[in-house]
């Protein structure tokens, strides 16, 4: 994994629920720390666009989808465990 790779992330939320807000702030913190300058986060509020849930087969909220780099990964939950989030996104190999 080269350090110039672009990270394309998508976070599915449902309105302003505490879990959604927690997930977003946790995600931003992790990205700023590990992927500074080479990531983008798209937040999709399914309350507003329930149609979009189909695209990434979203059932749980919040769900983080790593579109790029391939392969596609999904992490569900508020990302409160930074260590596990890093492993889940494959920013850090499994120990």
């Amino acid at each position: 994994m080269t350090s110039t790779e672009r990270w394309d992330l998508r976070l599915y939320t449902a309105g302003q629920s505490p879990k959604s807000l927690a997930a977003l702030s946790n995600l931003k913190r992790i990205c700023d720390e590990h992927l500074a300058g080479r990531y983008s986060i798209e937040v999709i509020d399914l309350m507003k666009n329930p149609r979009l849930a189909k695209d990434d087969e979203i059932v749980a909220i919040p769900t983080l989808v790593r579109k790029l780099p391939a392969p596609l990964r999904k992490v569900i939950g508020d990302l409160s465990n930074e260590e596990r989030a890093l492993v889940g996104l494959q920013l850090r190999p499994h120990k």
Partner: protein
Amino acid sequence: MGKSERSAAVARPAPRTLPKARTGIEGLDQITHGGLPQGRPTLVCGGPGCGKTLLAMEFLIRGAMQFGEPGVFMAFEETGEELAQNVRSLGFDLDQLVAQKKIALDYVRVEPAEIEENGEYDLEGLFLRLGYAIDSVGAKRVVLDTIEALFGGFTNEAVLRAELRRLFRWLKDRGVTAVITGERGDESYTRQGLEEYVSDCVILLDHRVNDQISTRRLRIVKYRGTTHGTSEYPFLIDEQGISVMPVTALHLDHAVTDERVSSGIPRLDAMLGGEGYYRGSSVLVSGTAGTGKTSLAASFAHATAKRGERCLYLAFEESPKQLVRNMSTIGLALEPLIAKGLLRMHASRPTFHGLEMHLVQMHKMIVQFEPAAVVIDPISNFSASGSTSDASLMLLRLIDFLKSRKITAFLTHLTSGGKAMEATDIGISSIIDTWLLVRDIELGGERNRGLYVLKSRGMKHSNQIREFVITPEGIELLDVYVGPEGVLTGSMRAAQEAREQAAALALQEELAAKQREVERLQATLETQRRNRAETALRRGGEAARAKGKKPA
């Protein structure tokens, strides 16, 4: 106006049962007394391959097609494409319903391998998707198939249980009639042991194999706030979908009729008070092998169809073609009647299905064909595909069903040799109205058939044994010879008849001879009388002449 309305409302008793959503599935609406609880969730559970998905799908499709209630099918196991394919074999065009916006299909793929869990989450995404699908077609019905697949995708059971509870509540709040399917657990009706408590109605499906014969059964485990049938009901999946046989309480309150129907054999009609069987009664013919039971049955079927009434012939020993061929040799042309659609034959082996399946199948055919008479030939083999008590119970149900529809039932029964003739090993004799017995009469080195009416409720019937002869023109019943020589049949009867005829002829000849003798005597007497008269006249003349001479 308002006043009168109110008084009308008071006068009318409040409806006691819950509002129900009809499923349109044959028989299920009868068992549930009207359908599934409207606006509430119903759980359909069972093992793999028991028909859960099909039941749910049929509920949805029939709702959309027959009752104008659009529906949402949320699948967790099969894709929309697969589902459409599955129901196409049942004659439903799912794609068209989707195109017409009567049904929305949403396949939710839950892939545990792709998902990492981290921290708190809920299933709001599922709710939003479902809500969106419901809104897109204005759904009144929702199916979730199956709930287990959802559980497989997530590891946090506490969250799942809480969300499941919320889902049922949410469905109720949306006011949709929902069917949720679930795999059967080891000790409870479902794997989680939770769904059955939060559902208003629980239907258990079961697919059992006994003695290599499979039977599907359906049971309503619970139904809040309403009465329902509690037995296990057999059901069938065929080209038309699911049909459940509502074999409930055995009623004995069928309407009866005085109308008679011919047996197809004039002489037999004469034995039965001159008019034949009662319409809607049950007729049993029992006898040992080769006594002509099937011929009697075919005669009845033939006569029924000839009158222009429909007759269903259920053959459990011979194929329809073989029956048609065999009956054509005794003067019964069944083929044209089949072609006209008045006679329908259906053959199957008794061991092909379980008893219940036979019952469901017969029930279904009878409902569809609406015959005036049903022939079952024979009933004796049913005990081979179940225990004797099961078989008799099945026939009892069947006869009750036929009676309730005023359909004449004609059953044949093979009596095994060595047993009492007046007993059926299926033990249904008590529910038979007219019972004919055909038996062998072995006499003079011949085996002949005798027929008599063992019983016939509500009519004057002959107590005579008739000799039963099958000729190329049909069945004939002849008087047996009863006299000083005993009961004679077959060639002995013929010989006796010939002897009697010869005797009669001899008597006639003797009479004729006597007659001729008398005539001859009469002729002689006449001649003598005439001669005497002439002599007298001659003598009279001579005397007169003599007198004349004397005075002279």
